[in-house]
Protein backbone atom coordinates (compact mmCIF):
# COMPACT_ATOMS: atom_id res chain seq x y z
CA UNK A 1 0.00 0.00 0.00
CA UNK A 2 1.32 3.41 -0.96
CA UNK A 3 2.33 5.54 2.02
CA UNK A 4 3.77 9.04 2.26
CA UNK A 5 6.27 10.69 4.54
CA UNK A 6 4.80 12.77 7.30
CA UNK A 7 5.57 14.04 10.77
CA UNK A 8 3.59 13.11 13.85
CA UNK A 9 3.69 15.91 16.41
CA UNK A 10 2.37 15.22 19.89
CA UNK A 11 1.86 18.22 22.15
CA UNK A 12 1.00 17.61 25.79
CA UNK A 13 -0.44 20.79 27.20
CA UNK A 14 -2.69 22.14 29.94
CA UNK A 15 -6.37 21.93 29.10
CA UNK A 16 -6.84 25.66 29.76
CA UNK A 17 -4.38 26.37 26.96
CA UNK A 18 -6.02 24.09 24.40
CA UNK A 19 -8.09 26.70 22.62
CA UNK A 20 -5.09 28.99 22.34
CA UNK A 21 -3.01 26.17 20.91
CA UNK A 22 -5.54 25.17 18.28
CA UNK A 23 -5.98 28.79 17.28
CA UNK A 24 -2.22 29.06 16.85
CA UNK A 25 -2.23 25.88 14.77
CA UNK A 26 -4.90 27.29 12.51
CA UNK A 27 -2.89 30.46 12.10
CA UNK A 28 0.07 28.31 11.10
CA UNK A 29 -2.14 26.70 8.49
CA UNK A 30 -2.31 23.37 10.29
CA UNK A 31 -5.89 22.17 9.91
CA UNK A 32 -5.86 18.60 11.14
CA UNK A 33 -5.42 17.39 14.72
CA UNK A 34 -6.93 15.13 17.33
CA UNK A 35 -7.16 15.81 21.05
CA UNK A 36 -6.68 12.93 23.47
CA UNK A 37 -7.44 13.04 27.19
CA UNK A 38 -4.60 12.57 29.67
CA UNK A 39 -5.52 10.92 32.98
CA UNK A 40 -2.56 12.07 34.95
CA UNK A 41 1.15 12.38 34.81
CA UNK A 42 4.35 13.60 36.29
CA UNK A 43 6.92 16.16 35.35
CA UNK A 44 9.07 18.88 36.78
CA UNK A 45 6.06 20.48 38.43
CA UNK A 46 5.11 17.31 40.30
CA UNK A 47 2.49 14.71 39.60
CA UNK A 48 -1.24 15.11 39.16
CA UNK A 49 -4.32 13.04 38.42
CA UNK A 50 -7.64 13.78 36.83
CA UNK A 51 -9.62 11.87 39.49
CA UNK A 52 -12.23 13.97 41.15
CA UNK A 53 -10.77 17.01 39.44
CA UNK A 54 -13.09 19.92 40.10
CA UNK A 55 -10.76 22.76 39.47
CA UNK A 56 -10.59 23.92 35.89
CA UNK A 57 -7.06 25.06 36.46
CA UNK A 58 -5.35 21.72 36.17
CA UNK A 59 -5.48 18.76 33.82
CA UNK A 60 -3.70 18.15 30.55
CA UNK A 61 -4.56 16.94 27.09
CA UNK A 62 -2.55 15.59 24.21
CA UNK A 63 -2.86 17.11 20.77
CA UNK A 64 -1.71 14.86 17.93
CA UNK A 65 -1.08 16.47 14.52
CA UNK A 66 -0.09 14.61 11.41
CA UNK A 67 1.48 17.00 8.90
CA UNK A 68 3.53 17.13 5.74
CA UNK A 69 7.23 17.35 6.70
CA UNK A 70 7.63 20.80 5.15
CA UNK A 71 4.99 22.23 7.48
CA UNK A 72 6.84 21.08 10.60
CA UNK A 73 8.75 24.27 11.27
CA UNK A 74 5.71 26.49 11.02
CA UNK A 75 3.85 24.17 13.36
CA UNK A 76 6.64 24.03 15.93
CA UNK A 77 7.01 27.80 15.90
CA UNK A 78 3.29 28.24 16.46
CA UNK A 79 3.15 25.60 19.17
CA UNK A 80 6.22 26.92 20.90
CA UNK A 81 4.76 30.39 21.26
CA UNK A 82 1.88 28.89 23.20
CA UNK A 83 3.73 26.38 25.34
CA UNK A 84 6.79 28.56 25.88
CA UNK A 85 5.85 29.97 29.26
CA UNK A 86 3.60 27.03 30.13
CA UNK A 87 4.21 23.50 31.30
CA UNK A 88 3.94 20.79 28.68
CA UNK A 89 6.04 18.81 26.22
CA UNK A 90 6.32 18.58 22.44
CA UNK A 91 7.44 15.41 20.68
CA UNK A 92 7.97 14.83 16.95
CA UNK A 93 8.30 11.45 15.23
CA UNK A 94 8.76 10.44 11.61
CA UNK A 95 5.71 8.74 10.24
CA UNK A 96 4.08 7.42 7.11
CA UNK A 97 0.48 8.20 6.24
CA UNK A 98 -2.11 6.91 3.84
CA UNK A 99 -4.04 9.36 1.68
CA UNK A 100 -1.42 12.11 1.60
CA UNK A 101 -3.80 14.52 -0.09
CA UNK A 102 -5.45 15.07 3.27
CA UNK A 103 -2.47 16.74 4.94
Amino acid at each position, binding site marked *: MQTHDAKRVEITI*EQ*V*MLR*RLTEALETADVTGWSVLPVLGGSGR*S*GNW*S*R*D*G*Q*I*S*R*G*TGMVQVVCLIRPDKLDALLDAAFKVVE*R*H*IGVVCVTDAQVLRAERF
Partner: protein
Amino acid sequence: MLDLALANLLSPIVLSFVLGLGAALARSDLAVPEAVAKGISIYLLFAIGFKGGASLAEHGIDLKLGLTLLMGVVLSFSLPLLGFALLRLLSGMSRTDAAAVAGHYGSISIVTFVAATTVLADAGLSSEGYMVAVAAAMEAPAILSALWLISRGSDQTEMSADLWREILLNGSIVLLLGAFVIGIATGAEGLSRIESFIVSPFQGVLCLFLLDMGLIAGRGLRKADVLDRGAIGFGVLMPLLGAGAGLLASLVVGLSAGGTMLLMTLSASASYIAVPAAMRVAVPQANPSIYLTLSLAVTFPFNLVLGLPIYLTVAKTVIGS
Protein backbone atom coordinates in the same frame (compact mmCIF):
# COMPACT_ATOMS: atom_id res chain seq x y z
CA MET B 1 -21.38 28.08 69.97
CA LEU B 2 -19.59 24.92 71.00
CA ASP B 3 -22.88 23.10 70.66
CA LEU B 4 -23.25 24.51 67.22
CA ALA B 5 -19.72 23.53 66.23
CA LEU B 6 -20.35 20.02 67.48
CA ALA B 7 -23.68 19.73 65.69
CA ASN B 8 -21.98 20.96 62.55
CA LEU B 9 -19.16 18.50 63.04
CA LEU B 10 -21.62 15.65 63.30
CA SER B 11 -23.65 16.57 60.25
CA PRO B 12 -23.58 13.99 57.43
CA ILE B 13 -22.09 16.66 55.19
CA VAL B 14 -19.04 17.37 57.31
CA LEU B 15 -18.56 13.70 58.14
CA SER B 16 -18.63 12.82 54.45
CA PHE B 17 -15.87 15.34 53.92
CA VAL B 18 -13.90 13.84 56.78
CA LEU B 19 -14.37 10.37 55.31
CA GLY B 20 -12.93 11.50 51.99
CA LEU B 21 -10.09 13.27 53.73
CA GLY B 22 -9.22 10.19 55.76
CA ALA B 23 -9.44 7.89 52.76
CA ALA B 24 -7.05 10.05 50.75
CA LEU B 25 -4.62 10.42 53.63
CA ALA B 26 -4.62 6.64 54.12
CA ARG B 27 -4.00 6.33 50.37
CA SER B 28 -7.16 4.37 49.65
CA ASP B 29 -7.96 4.15 45.95
CA LEU B 30 -11.45 5.54 46.59
CA ALA B 31 -12.10 8.06 43.81
CA VAL B 32 -15.02 9.89 42.28
CA PRO B 33 -14.77 9.88 38.47
CA GLU B 34 -14.15 13.32 36.99
CA ALA B 35 -17.38 13.20 34.97
CA VAL B 36 -19.43 12.39 38.08
CA ALA B 37 -17.81 15.18 40.07
CA LYS B 38 -18.56 17.61 37.25
CA GLY B 39 -22.12 16.32 36.98
CA ILE B 40 -22.72 16.85 40.69
CA SER B 41 -21.22 20.29 40.51
CA ILE B 42 -23.59 21.20 37.67
CA TYR B 43 -26.47 19.93 39.80
CA LEU B 44 -25.42 21.99 42.82
CA LEU B 45 -24.92 25.20 40.84
CA PHE B 46 -28.24 24.78 39.08
CA ALA B 47 -30.10 23.99 42.29
CA ILE B 48 -28.61 26.77 44.37
CA GLY B 49 -29.06 29.33 41.61
CA PHE B 50 -32.65 28.31 40.94
CA LYS B 51 -33.62 28.32 44.59
CA GLY B 52 -32.09 31.74 45.06
CA GLY B 53 -34.03 33.09 42.12
CA ALA B 54 -37.29 31.50 43.18
CA SER B 55 -36.89 32.89 46.69
CA LEU B 56 -36.21 36.34 45.25
CA ALA B 57 -39.31 36.07 43.08
CA GLU B 58 -41.35 35.20 46.13
CA HIS B 59 -40.06 37.82 48.53
CA GLY B 60 -39.83 40.58 45.97
CA ILE B 61 -36.81 42.48 44.83
CA ASP B 62 -35.09 44.08 47.74
CA LEU B 63 -33.80 47.61 47.45
CA LYS B 64 -30.57 46.42 49.05
CA LEU B 65 -29.86 44.14 46.12
CA GLY B 66 -27.82 46.66 44.18
CA LEU B 67 -25.93 47.83 47.23
CA THR B 68 -25.08 44.28 48.29
CA LEU B 69 -23.82 43.46 44.82
CA LEU B 70 -21.64 46.54 44.95
CA MET B 71 -20.31 45.54 48.35
CA GLY B 72 -19.53 42.07 47.01
CA VAL B 73 -17.54 43.53 44.15
CA VAL B 74 -15.68 45.88 46.49
CA LEU B 75 -14.85 43.00 48.83
CA SER B 76 -13.63 40.86 45.94
CA PHE B 77 -11.41 43.68 44.70
CA SER B 78 -9.98 44.63 48.04
CA LEU B 79 -9.54 41.36 49.92
CA PRO B 80 -6.62 40.29 47.68
CA LEU B 81 -4.75 43.44 48.72
CA LEU B 82 -5.23 42.55 52.37
CA GLY B 83 -4.31 38.93 51.63
CA PHE B 84 -1.18 39.92 49.75
CA ALA B 85 0.05 42.11 52.57
CA LEU B 86 -0.65 39.39 55.11
CA LEU B 87 1.12 36.74 53.04
CA ARG B 88 4.21 38.86 52.55
CA LEU B 89 4.25 39.28 56.32
CA LEU B 90 3.71 35.63 57.23
CA SER B 91 5.21 33.54 54.48
CA GLY B 92 8.38 33.36 52.46
CA MET B 93 6.72 32.72 49.13
CA SER B 94 7.56 34.78 46.07
CA ARG B 95 5.68 37.97 45.17
CA THR B 96 4.07 36.24 42.22
CA ASP B 97 2.92 33.25 44.24
CA ALA B 98 1.67 35.50 47.01
CA ALA B 99 -0.34 37.60 44.56
CA ALA B 100 -1.81 34.52 42.93
CA VAL B 101 -2.82 33.09 46.30
CA ALA B 102 -4.29 36.42 47.39
CA GLY B 103 -6.45 36.46 44.28
CA HIS B 104 -8.06 33.19 45.34
CA TYR B 105 -9.15 34.68 48.67
CA GLY B 106 -10.88 37.64 47.11
CA SER B 107 -12.95 35.31 45.00
CA ILE B 108 -15.33 32.71 46.46
CA SER B 109 -15.92 28.99 46.88
CA ILE B 110 -19.40 28.03 45.83
CA VAL B 111 -19.44 24.76 47.80
CA THR B 112 -18.63 26.60 50.97
CA PHE B 113 -21.55 28.87 50.15
CA VAL B 114 -23.78 25.86 49.54
CA ALA B 115 -22.72 24.29 52.82
CA ALA B 116 -23.45 27.59 54.56
CA THR B 117 -27.00 27.61 53.17
CA THR B 118 -27.63 24.16 54.65
CA VAL B 119 -26.22 25.29 58.00
CA LEU B 120 -28.57 28.27 57.83
CA ALA B 121 -31.51 26.05 56.97
CA ASP B 122 -30.70 23.79 59.92
CA ALA B 123 -30.61 26.83 62.16
CA GLY B 124 -34.02 27.86 60.85
CA LEU B 125 -32.73 31.13 59.41
CA SER B 126 -33.68 32.51 56.03
CA SER B 127 -31.59 34.79 53.87
CA GLU B 128 -31.87 37.16 50.95
CA GLY B 129 -32.38 35.12 47.76
CA TYR B 130 -30.05 37.34 45.81
CA MET B 131 -27.00 36.26 47.79
CA VAL B 132 -26.48 33.80 44.95
CA ALA B 133 -26.04 36.70 42.57
CA VAL B 134 -23.62 38.29 45.00
CA ALA B 135 -21.63 35.05 44.96
CA ALA B 136 -21.42 35.21 41.18
CA ALA B 137 -20.45 38.86 41.26
CA MET B 138 -17.60 38.15 43.64
CA GLU B 139 -15.97 35.47 41.48
CA ALA B 140 -14.04 37.61 39.02
CA PRO B 141 -12.97 41.02 40.40
CA ALA B 142 -10.32 39.43 42.62
CA ILE B 143 -8.56 38.16 39.53
CA LEU B 144 -8.00 41.73 38.39
CA SER B 145 -6.50 42.67 41.73
CA ALA B 146 -4.17 39.68 41.64
CA LEU B 147 -2.98 40.54 38.15
CA TRP B 148 -2.46 44.13 39.13
CA LEU B 149 -0.37 43.04 42.12
CA ILE B 150 1.72 40.83 39.89
CA SER B 151 2.21 43.37 37.12
CA ARG B 152 3.38 45.91 39.71
CA GLY B 153 6.23 43.53 40.42
CA SER B 154 7.03 43.93 36.71
CA ASP B 155 6.66 40.21 36.25
CA GLN B 156 5.09 39.32 32.92
CA THR B 157 1.40 38.49 32.90
CA GLU B 158 -0.73 37.82 29.90
CA MET B 159 -4.02 39.64 30.08
CA SER B 160 -6.29 40.02 27.10
CA ALA B 161 -9.89 40.76 26.24
CA ASP B 162 -10.01 37.12 25.31
CA LEU B 163 -9.06 36.01 28.81
CA TRP B 164 -11.64 38.36 30.28
CA ARG B 165 -14.36 36.89 28.19
CA GLU B 166 -13.23 33.46 29.36
CA ILE B 167 -13.31 34.45 33.01
CA LEU B 168 -16.66 36.22 32.95
CA LEU B 169 -18.29 33.48 30.91
CA ASN B 170 -16.79 30.57 32.78
CA GLY B 171 -19.23 27.71 33.15
CA SER B 172 -19.91 28.05 36.85
CA ILE B 173 -20.77 31.76 36.73
CA VAL B 174 -23.00 31.29 33.70
CA LEU B 175 -24.82 28.32 35.21
CA LEU B 176 -25.28 29.95 38.61
CA LEU B 177 -26.59 33.21 37.20
CA GLY B 178 -28.59 31.48 34.50
CA ALA B 179 -30.35 29.24 36.98
CA PHE B 180 -30.90 32.29 39.21
CA VAL B 181 -32.65 34.10 36.39
CA ILE B 182 -34.72 31.00 35.56
CA GLY B 183 -35.68 30.84 39.21
CA ILE B 184 -36.82 34.48 39.13
CA ALA B 185 -38.72 33.94 35.89
CA THR B 186 -40.57 30.79 36.95
CA GLY B 187 -40.89 31.60 40.66
CA ALA B 188 -42.64 29.43 43.19
CA GLU B 189 -44.56 27.65 40.48
CA GLY B 190 -41.42 26.63 38.64
CA LEU B 191 -39.84 25.59 41.90
CA SER B 192 -42.77 23.35 42.78
CA ARG B 193 -42.29 21.45 39.54
CA ILE B 194 -38.68 20.54 40.09
CA GLU B 195 -38.64 20.67 43.88
CA SER B 196 -38.26 16.92 44.27
CA PHE B 197 -35.13 17.16 42.16
CA ILE B 198 -33.40 20.28 43.43
CA VAL B 199 -34.67 20.55 47.00
CA SER B 200 -35.35 17.19 48.64
CA PRO B 201 -32.26 15.24 47.57
CA PHE B 202 -29.99 18.28 47.82
CA GLN B 203 -28.28 17.52 51.13
CA GLY B 204 -27.62 13.94 50.11
CA VAL B 205 -26.02 14.94 46.84
CA LEU B 206 -23.97 17.49 48.74
CA CYS B 207 -22.65 14.65 50.93
CA LEU B 208 -21.23 12.86 47.90
CA PHE B 209 -19.72 16.07 46.61
CA LEU B 210 -18.08 16.73 49.95
CA LEU B 211 -16.78 13.17 49.99
CA ASP B 212 -15.00 14.06 46.78
CA MET B 213 -13.83 17.41 48.15
CA GLY B 214 -12.41 15.48 51.08
CA LEU B 215 -10.53 13.16 48.75
CA ILE B 216 -9.11 16.13 46.88
CA ALA B 217 -8.19 17.96 50.07
CA GLY B 218 -6.53 14.81 51.40
CA ARG B 219 -4.48 14.33 48.25
CA GLY B 220 -3.55 17.99 48.52
CA LEU B 221 -2.46 17.63 52.13
CA ARG B 222 -0.10 14.85 51.11
CA LYS B 223 1.69 17.48 49.04
CA ALA B 224 1.42 20.12 51.76
CA ASP B 225 5.20 20.46 52.01
CA VAL B 226 4.98 23.15 49.32
CA LEU B 227 3.53 25.34 52.08
CA ASP B 228 5.64 26.90 54.78
CA ARG B 229 4.21 27.41 58.24
CA GLY B 230 3.35 31.02 57.52
CA ALA B 231 1.31 30.02 54.50
CA ILE B 232 -0.70 27.54 56.53
CA GLY B 233 -1.29 30.17 59.17
CA PHE B 234 -2.52 32.46 56.42
CA GLY B 235 -4.94 29.77 55.26
CA VAL B 236 -6.66 29.90 58.65
CA LEU B 237 -6.28 33.57 59.49
CA MET B 238 -7.33 35.00 56.16
CA PRO B 239 -10.85 33.50 56.22
CA LEU B 240 -11.41 35.04 59.64
CA LEU B 241 -10.28 38.44 58.40
CA GLY B 242 -12.35 38.01 55.27
CA ALA B 243 -15.39 37.12 57.35
CA GLY B 244 -14.77 40.23 59.42
CA ALA B 245 -14.71 42.38 56.30
CA GLY B 246 -17.87 40.66 55.12
CA LEU B 247 -19.54 41.44 58.43
CA LEU B 248 -18.69 45.12 58.12
CA ALA B 249 -19.99 45.23 54.58
CA SER B 250 -23.16 43.54 55.69
CA LEU B 251 -23.69 46.09 58.47
CA VAL B 252 -23.34 48.87 55.93
CA VAL B 253 -25.99 47.30 53.74
CA GLY B 254 -28.22 46.09 56.53
CA LEU B 255 -28.63 42.44 55.62
CA SER B 256 -30.55 39.92 57.71
CA ALA B 257 -28.63 37.59 60.04
CA GLY B 258 -28.82 34.86 57.40
CA GLY B 259 -27.60 37.16 54.66
CA THR B 260 -24.81 38.40 56.90
CA MET B 261 -23.63 34.88 57.56
CA LEU B 262 -23.61 34.18 53.82
CA LEU B 263 -21.69 37.34 52.99
CA MET B 264 -19.18 36.49 55.71
CA THR B 265 -18.84 33.01 54.25
CA LEU B 266 -18.32 34.33 50.74
CA SER B 267 -15.66 36.73 51.96
CA ALA B 268 -14.00 34.01 54.01
CA SER B 269 -13.92 31.39 51.29
CA ALA B 270 -11.29 30.94 48.60
CA SER B 271 -11.85 30.08 44.95
CA TYR B 272 -10.76 26.76 43.45
CA ILE B 273 -12.44 26.98 40.04
CA ALA B 274 -12.43 30.34 38.30
CA VAL B 275 -9.25 31.81 39.76
CA PRO B 276 -6.89 28.83 39.27
CA ALA B 277 -7.92 28.59 35.63
CA ALA B 278 -7.29 32.29 35.07
CA MET B 279 -3.94 32.08 36.88
CA ARG B 280 -2.79 29.14 34.78
CA VAL B 281 -3.42 31.15 31.65
CA ALA B 282 -2.20 34.54 32.77
CA VAL B 283 0.50 33.74 35.31
CA PRO B 284 1.86 30.28 34.45
CA GLN B 285 4.97 30.98 36.48
CA ALA B 286 2.94 30.95 39.72
CA ASN B 287 3.01 27.51 41.31
CA PRO B 288 -0.48 25.94 41.19
CA SER B 289 0.35 23.52 44.01
CA ILE B 290 0.62 26.43 46.40
CA TYR B 291 -2.68 28.11 45.67
CA LEU B 292 -4.68 24.94 45.15
CA THR B 293 -3.35 23.31 48.31
CA LEU B 294 -4.02 26.39 50.42
CA SER B 295 -7.48 26.89 49.03
CA LEU B 296 -8.65 23.26 48.94
CA ALA B 297 -6.69 21.57 51.69
CA VAL B 298 -6.43 24.30 54.31
CA THR B 299 -9.05 27.00 53.99
CA PHE B 300 -11.92 24.89 52.65
CA PRO B 301 -11.79 22.37 55.54
CA PHE B 302 -11.31 25.15 58.05
CA ASN B 303 -14.38 26.98 56.81
CA LEU B 304 -16.48 23.84 56.57
CA VAL B 305 -15.71 22.56 60.04
CA LEU B 306 -15.00 25.63 62.16
CA GLY B 307 -15.66 28.68 60.07
CA LEU B 308 -19.33 28.15 59.34
CA PRO B 309 -20.46 27.75 62.95
CA ILE B 310 -18.32 30.76 63.90
CA TYR B 311 -19.79 32.96 61.18
CA LEU B 312 -23.29 31.85 62.10
CA THR B 313 -22.79 32.61 65.78
CA VAL B 314 -21.26 35.99 65.08
CA ALA B 315 -23.98 36.90 62.59
CA LYS B 316 -26.71 35.90 65.01
CA THR B 317 -25.08 37.77 67.86
CA VAL B 318 -24.42 40.95 65.93
CA ILE B 319 -27.62 41.09 63.88
CA GLY B 320 -30.02 39.12 66.07
CA SER B 321 -32.11 36.44 64.42
